[in-house]
């Protein structure tokens, strides 16, 4: 057989391998996304980099204030990052993350504002009595309208606000110890180091 025929045969063989290669490539790409990729249901907040929404929240408790845009940002009282935690008494994952929110507030000494959304006052107060109240301020949003201003679509959600009053980060879903260590603590530290 001539050299040309050899080459033709080899080319034909390689061409036949092409579909297999493309298929393996697809399997690889999809498998990677499936195992290590980001959860596509998590939507990044549209507010990142923007000042907090201009919405005033009434107080949930008599002895604890609600909050509005003036409670963030470069005012003398606010020279450190703030967390905003959206919660509701009916939300089971909120219950799961509550100890971590409590630990964040106590151990990191970071103000956590609670945004009690689509809840009733009685149920929310009972919930806090039972699980403890780590919040510095709690806003009451029975209609969920303030939640929409904040771009909330799942419960719980937790926002990190920088000392300038801008949204830096949002996490949708309950904060696990891993999320706390990998996502929140480094960001809080970086904001404090500035």
């Amino acid at each position: 057989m001539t050299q040309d025929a050899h080459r033709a045969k080899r080319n034909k063989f390689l061409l036949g391998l092409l579909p297999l290669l493309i298929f393996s490539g697809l399997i690889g790409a999809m498998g990677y996304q499936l195992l290590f990729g980001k959860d596509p249901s998590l939507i990044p907040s549209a507010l990142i980099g923007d000042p907090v929404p201009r919405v005033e929240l009434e107080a949930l408790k008599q002895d604890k204030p609600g909050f509005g845009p003036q409670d963030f940002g470069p005012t003398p009282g606010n020279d450190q990052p703030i967390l905003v935690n959206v919660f509701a008494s009916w939300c089971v994952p909120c219950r799961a993350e509550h100890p971590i929110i409590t630990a964040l507030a106590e151990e990191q000494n970071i103000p956590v504002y609670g945004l009690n959304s689509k809840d009733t006052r009685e149920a929310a107060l009972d919930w806090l009595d039972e699980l403890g109240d780590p919040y510095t301020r709690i806003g009451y949003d029975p209609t969920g309208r303030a939640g929409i201003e904040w771009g909330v679509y799942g419960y719980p959600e937790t926002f990190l606000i920088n000392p300038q009053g801008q949204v830096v980060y949002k996490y949708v879903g309950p904060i696990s110890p891993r999320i706390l260590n990998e996502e929140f603590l480094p960001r809080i530290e970086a904001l404090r180091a500035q």
Partner: protein
Amino acid sequence: MRNFCLIVSILVALAIPASVITATPGFAVLPDEKLSDPNLENRAREISKDIRCLVCQNQSIDDSNADLARDLRIIVRERLTAGDSNQQVKDYLVARYGDYVLLTPPLNLETVFLWAGPFLLVAIGMVIIFLWYRNRTPETDATPITNTTGLSPAERQRLAELMAEESPQERSTEKSGKM
């Protein structure tokens, strides 16, 4: 070349129905949400069909029974009643939830590949098919080979050897070196 045209027309024929068929309307609007003004209500329905329900994500708020979808439908109607244009209502939602809330993503730098991708792929495919056909045309067409000087000296020598050593009878029985 006729085959090339055939393949292209098949591709086009396949592409058309895919772009025409749209999702069947589910429509989850509750009676208490509806606006009394049919004009505004129609506009609300039209906007809602292009707003993604962020909880179910592949349904529009017009189709979804989720709580948040209902809240957003009510907001759409409130904004319209307040005198917003369709675009202003969409902008209001995009400001809170990002471009992702639109089921028709806007054309910008981030989405240019999304929009141009299908056309790019069809163009690449057509180029590949065209090149493929152009390369195989000389074999299929019965074009007489006029260029007889196309053999290299080595090939000419080998040809001369074969001509010299094989008698016509032997050649007809021998298995050729063809693959």
